[in-house]
C-alpha cells in the first residue's frame, strides 16, 4: 500500500505476473538491460524484456541493418544474440540483482527449438516470465512465420507451455490478415497473455544506386509510424480474448501509452523511443502517473479499457 492517497496505484497483473507499474521495455531495444542502466533506474521499470534469445548464438545479418523512414525505423538485425546459455551465465546474474520482473524474449526456427529454449530458461533462477516471439520464420514450413498461421502459433504455444511453468506471453506479428484470430488461437492453446505488435514488414530503396537500403532487403518497421496500426490491433484483440493484452508499437510519450491503456492494454512496452531518449521509459511512467493524478484516478485499473463510444 502506498503511504499517500495522492499517489495513484500503478500496479497491474498480467495473468499470474504482478508488475509494479505497466511500463516495460520492448525486446531488442533495451539490450540486456545493462546498456541503459546508466540512464534508467531499472528498479523503477514495470518489467524488463531482454533481446530475443535462441538456442544457439546467432551472428545476425551483415550491415546495413538500419534504415530511417518518415517517423519510422526499419531494422534487419537478423535476431543476432548470444544464445540462451550465455544469457543465463553472463547476463542473468546482473539482472537478478534488480527487483524488477525480468522477462526473457525467445524465438526458434522449429517448434522444438522454442521448447528447448523455454526448458533452459524455466530452470534458470531469476526470470519472471517468457515472451515468445512468433514472428520468426519456420524453417520446416518453407520460412513462413509461425505467427502467420493460427495452427503454427498454437503449436508453439503448446510446446512452450509443456516446457515450463513460467508465465507465458505470446508476442504477435502484425503481418497477418486477422490478428485477433491468431490471438484467440494462442489463448486456447494456453497462453497467459499476448503482446502486440512486433514490427511491420517493410523496405526502403536507395534510388541513386537502385539498391535496397538494407542488406537483407526487407526489415521490420518500428517507431511512431506504426502506432495507429498497433493501437487498432490492440483494440481489436482486447475485444476478442479474455487474457491480458500488452500493447506496443510506436509509443514515444505518455499520451501514446495512455491511448493503449484506454483501449484496454493492461501494460505497454516502450521500444524505439529509448533510442531517441534513453530516459523515455521513465518519462512515460511519470507522465502516466501525472495523468492519473490530474484526473483523480487512484488506481490505474480504473483507466484500463475505459474507451467510450464515439
Amino acid at each position, binding site marked *: 500500500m502506498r503511504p499517500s492517497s495522492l499517489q495513484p496505484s500503478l500496479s497491474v497483473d498480467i495473468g499470474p505476473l504482478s508488475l509494479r507499474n505497466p511500463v516495460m521495455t520492448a525486446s531488442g531495444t533495451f539490450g540486456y538491460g545493462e*546498456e541503459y542502466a546508466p540512464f534508467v533506474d531499472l528498479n523503477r521499470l514495470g518489467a524488463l524484456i531482454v533481446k530475443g534469445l535462441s538456442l544457439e548464438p546467432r551472428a545476425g545479418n551483415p550491415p546495413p*541493418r538500419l534504415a530511417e523512414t518518415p517517423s519510422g525505423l526499419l531494422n534487419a538485425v537478423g535476431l543476432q544474440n548470444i544464445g540462451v546459455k550465455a544469457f543465463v551465465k553472463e547476463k542473468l546474474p546482473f539482472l537478478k540483482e534488480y527487483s524488477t520482473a525480468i522477462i526473457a524474449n525467445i524465438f526458434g526456427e522449429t517448434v522444438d527449438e522454442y521448447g528447448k529454449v523455454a526448458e533452459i530458461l524455466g530452470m534458470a533462477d531469476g526470470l519472471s516470465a517468457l515472451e515468445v516471439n512468433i514472428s520468426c520464420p519456420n524453417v520446416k514450413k518453407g520460412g513462413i512465420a509461425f505467427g502467420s498461421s493460427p495452427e503454427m502459433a498454437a503449436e508453439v504455444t503448446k510446446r512452450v507451455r509443456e516446457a515450463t511453468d513460467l508465465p507465458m506471453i505470446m508476442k504477435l506479428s502484425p503481418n497477418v490478415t486477422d490478428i485477433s484470430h491468431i490471438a484467440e488461437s494462442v489463448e486456447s492453446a494456453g497462453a497467459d497473455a499476448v503482446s502486440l505488435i512486433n514490427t511491420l514488414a517493410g523496405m526502403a530503396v536507395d534510388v541513386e544506386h537502385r539498391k535496397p537500403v538494407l542488406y537483407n532487403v526487407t526489415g521490420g518497421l518500428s517507431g511512431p509510424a506504426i502506432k495507429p496500426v498497433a493501437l487498432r490491433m490492440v483494440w481489436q484483440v482486447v475485444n476478442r480474448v479474455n487474457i491480458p493484452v500488452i500493447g506496443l508499437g510506436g509509443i514515444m510519450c505518455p499520451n501514446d501509452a495512455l491511448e493503449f491503456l484506454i483501449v484496454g492494454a493492461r501494460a505497454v512496452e516502450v521500444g524505439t523511443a529509448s*533510442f531517441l*531518449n*534513453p*530516459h523515455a521509459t521513465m518519462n512515460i511512467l511519470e507522465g502516466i502517473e501525472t495523468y492519473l493524478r490530474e484526473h483523480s484516478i487512484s488506481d490505474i485499473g480504473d483507466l484500463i479499457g475505459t474507451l467510450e463510444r464515439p
Partner: protein
Amino acid sequence: MHPVPLFIKGRILDNLEAVRGHFLLRLKLPPAFHHPVPGQFVMIRVTESQTPLLARPMSIYAFEKGAGHSVLEIFYRVAGAGTRILSGLKPGDELSLLGPLGNGFSGNQEARRAILIAGGIGISPLTFLAASLSPIREPFPVEMTAYVGAQRKEALAGLDRLSAVCPDIRICTDDGSMGYGGRVTELFERELDAFDPQGCAVYACGPRAMMKRLAELLEKHPLPCQVSVEERMACGLGACLGCAVAVRTPGGDVAFMRACKDGPVFDIRRIDW
C-alpha cells in the same frame, strides 16, 4: 573503462560554415559532461520532432572544460536531411545529445611518431587526437605526419586547425588541384618504407574505400594502425545491434561487433573489409 555517458542539452554558441558544405558547431554543455577521449563521439538530435527520427553520430572535434561549463566542437559535412537541418540551427538554439560514446583511439606509449591519415570529414577525430597527442609528451612531444585527402582543393576542410598542432601535413587531391595529385593511400604507399615501424603508429579515418585500401597496404607491413569506422546507428549504446561491423574472429570466421560500443575505433587488421 570510460566514464558513463550522459543525455543532456547543449546550447549552440556558433554554427558556422568553414568550407563549403562543412560546418563547425560549438556547443556549450553543462559541466557534468565527461571529458572525452579522442575518437569518441556523440549522438546529436538535430530536431525534437520525429523527422528525422534518430540522432546523428558525430565525432568529437575538440573539447574544452571551462569553469561552470564545457565547450564541445563538432566538425560536420552536410550529407543529407539531418545534417541540413543541423546546419540551419542558430546560436542560442538548444539540442539534445548523448555522449561521450564508444572507445577512442588508444595512445601507443611506445610510438614517437603518429601518422594520421584522413579522408574528407575523417579529419575531425584525427584533429582531436593530434591536439591531445602534442602536449602529452612535453618535453618530448610525439612527432606527427598527417596525410589529408579530398576530392579537390575546395573540399579540403579543417586544415587550419590541424596544422596548428601538426605542421607536417601532406595534402592529396583526387584532381591534383592542390598537393599530391591522387589518393592519400597512394602517397602514403610511396612513403611507407621511410617510416620506422618500431616507433610509429597509424591512425586513420575516412571513407570506407580509403580504409579498405589502407588495410591492404598494411597487410604485410608491421606498422600498427587504428581506424575509426562509420556505421548507421540508432541507440549509440550497444543495445540495438544496428551498427554491425564485420570482424574476423581468431578462428577465421566473421562475427559482427558494434561500431558504437566495441568501436568506433578498431585495429585495422581485425576488420573484415
